């Protein structure tokens, strides 16, 4: 950290160029998601021009096979993709971290049960498992979210358990036990506060991955249903229109930048928060 401060005086140590780029990109897409209706763009669900028109002054990213504005759909798509990512990561962290913490803290057969469940889940390739769950539940964004949570929770369970196992042997915990602290107090006041850092870093990095997998599910028809402007579904529509490259370009570029943004941000966050990762 100290080194970074020396190189760029006046900037906080964590704000390296990649982090700045990541932050800017993520901020842009979050702003786009919140303000998509205020940009004065065409209705993303209605036919507004002739179909399959290439990019022009009136429609910066052209129109799709139904004559809808691709730019408008891409910006409105941010709302859907970011919401999915936020909900999935929040749910996966909550579920995974809770189970992992209990497993690590209680130990014994509870630990065995939870960790075997984790092992079984992680034994499936994530994309295949998500597809299987989504296909069983049927198409729809809600079902895609359930499928993604089912894929992602074990990572956090494993991470949290490892953290809890490590922290619970520290001296301050033993001191708290000696002072007569109950299990609930031990876990919530003395152990968990020290376990969140890697979970947070992982969660930031995972946002991008969740957006990717959600788009993949929609691409193969297991996520968003028409006419929802979801990025993966839009790319799927564009894939059938080979000579109209612009249909897939908007959402493709959006996914590329937002995933890159979250990866940069996660990297920076790790460097800043995780004292063990040497620079």
């Amino acid at each position, binding site marked *: 950290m100290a080194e970074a401060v020396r190189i760029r005086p006046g900037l906080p140590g964590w704000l390296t160029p990649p982090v700045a780029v990541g932050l800017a990109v993520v901020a842009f897409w979050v702003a786009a998601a919140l303000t998509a209706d205020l940009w004065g763009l065409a209705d993303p669900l*209605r*036919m507004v021009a002739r*179909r*399959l028109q290439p990019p022009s002054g009136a429609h910066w990213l052209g129109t799709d*096979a*139904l*004559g809808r504005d691709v730019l408008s759909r891409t910006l409105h798509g941010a709302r859907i993709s970011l919401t999915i990512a936020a909900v999935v990561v929040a749910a996966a962290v909550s579920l995974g971290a809770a189970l992992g913490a209990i497993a690590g803290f209680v130990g014994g057969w509870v630990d065995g049960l939870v960790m075997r469940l984790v092992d079984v889940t992680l034994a499936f390739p994530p994309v295949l498992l998500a597809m299987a769950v989504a296909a069983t539940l*049927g*198409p*729809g964004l809600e079902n895609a979210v359930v499928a993604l949570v089912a894929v992602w929770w074990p990572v956090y369970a494993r991470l949290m358990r490892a953290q809890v196992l490590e922290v619970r042997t520290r001296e301050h915990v033993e001191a708290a036990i000696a002072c007569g602290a109950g299990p609930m107090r031990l876990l919530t006041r003395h152990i968990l506060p020290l376990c969140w850092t890697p979970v947070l870093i992982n969660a930031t990095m995972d946002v991008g991955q969740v957006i990717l997998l959600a788009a993949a599910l929609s691409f193969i*028809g297991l996520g968003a*249903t*028409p*006419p929802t402007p979801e990025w993966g579904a839009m790319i799927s*529509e564009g894939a*059938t*229109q*080979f*000579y*109209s490259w612009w249909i897939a370009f908007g959402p493709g570029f959006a996914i590329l930048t937002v995933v890159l943004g979250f990866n940069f941000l996660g990297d920076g966050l790790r460097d800043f928060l995780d004292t063990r990762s040497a620079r």
Partner: protein
Amino acid sequence: MLDTIPARRHSRRARPFALALVALIGLSPALAPRAQAAEATLVIARDMDITSLDPARAFCDTCQIVLSATYERLVDLGPDNRTIVPLLAESWEVNADQTVFTFKLDERARFADGGQVTSADVAWSLERLKHLKGNPSFLMDGVAAVETPDARTVVIRTTAPNSELLGILAAPYAAVVNRAVAEANGAKAGEGADAADQADGWFLANSAGSGPFTLAAYAPDDEVRLARNAGYWRDAAPVAQVVIKQVKDSVTQAQMLQSGAADIAMQIDADTAAGVTDPNVVIEPTASFNFVYVALGAGADGMPISMTRPVREAIGLALDYEGIIDLTVAGKGRRIAAPIPNGFPGTEGLPLPARDLDRAKALLAEAGIGGRVTLEAVYPSVNIYGVDFDILMQKVQQDLGDVGLDLALQPVTFPVWRERITATGIPVTAVYYAPDYFGSGQYVQFFGTQEGSPWYKRSHVAKAPDAVNPRIPDLLAAALAAPAEKVDEAFAAIAREMIADRIILPVVSPDLTLAYRKGVKGVRYSACCNLPLAEISVE
């Protein structure tokens, strides 16, 4: 099958050497082009849907191509897609009330193994088609008996007058199979054949017909390979070999045509075809007999409104037919009046559907439907005949939205769709249909809302009395008994009934894009057989 396409390259590479040799030994050089054409291989890029290659079991568009090339029927459908022409039968007679059909077999007709085609083979094959109880077995529903007074005469008796029997017998599924060969490989034809017959696997690797080609090899999800029948009893096919390659999407089919890896493709959608600018590729849109329709579940479960006849009429009037054709097939399609393909008996002069929003809104208001109503729209998420159903249904959603009907779109796989429509019905859906033989009767039986018909069940009409049409069975019987000059009129009357029932709302008959390399001749679309391979030559 790894040796398949390289084999073609080898033959091309070997050709110059062979020709040089021919020239060297002093034969006329004029023979060279003919020799080249005679050895030509025709490659077709196609997304295949083969379920079986047993004529009595198969039921698919690609099956029509393969079966009509490897087997022959008593009669064929002429190039005008209307006239019945001789094939194995050189002549036939029909009695006055159209219940007894007598065929005289062509004496020259031979199977690929050299054996003569006899009336016993014909009777055995039709009997087998009936008793296997497979998908195409319904074609034999009205057949009471097949008699063989002598080796060259076949007499078919029907249970009721049937003006369409000749059209049915021209379907590739009514193929005449070499009985001796098939029986030696486990085929059975009598009662109980559906359980006793063991030949399905054998037919996937072999053919036993009299057609211009024989089945050389079939590798599922890869290719079908046909070889010219060397001893064909009529004029031999111009190409020595046909390879149908499995190519899933329209864009790849177009690219293969442009690169020369394929000679013919028939499933290139209109948007992709518009992007093909290669001067060596001929793009020929042609009217097809396929159509795509919106279907209403008059008695579907859980609807917030009662889907009475005026409501169904309003939905029909709210659809923007021209817009749908423009969006789904880039304008390369035709409107269609009734659920019977344009050009089939009874379709001439029917009123084409058109959008009338004011009338649609008025009808809905009269039916007491004010404000917005949400209807479920489960549909198969397929792309067929160039129509992407996701795009179609989004357009239908927009159109119906204009009259206050909101569709909740649910794309599903075909099996899931079939289960849903059977179990609970679906208020608004979309499906497609292609003819199984030339004749309008099949459409009346399938789409009419007479008791027990497929769409009577799918639309759950039993719960929507005003959608049941009890007049159809009598009208159909009359149409099937009608003399040739009255058939059109009789089917037109049924078509008008089906239009008024408004369960099936046909939205587009997509044009078929015949795309082929320059130098390929004789490519045409057939109502019975899809693509008649024996007529195609390569320059």
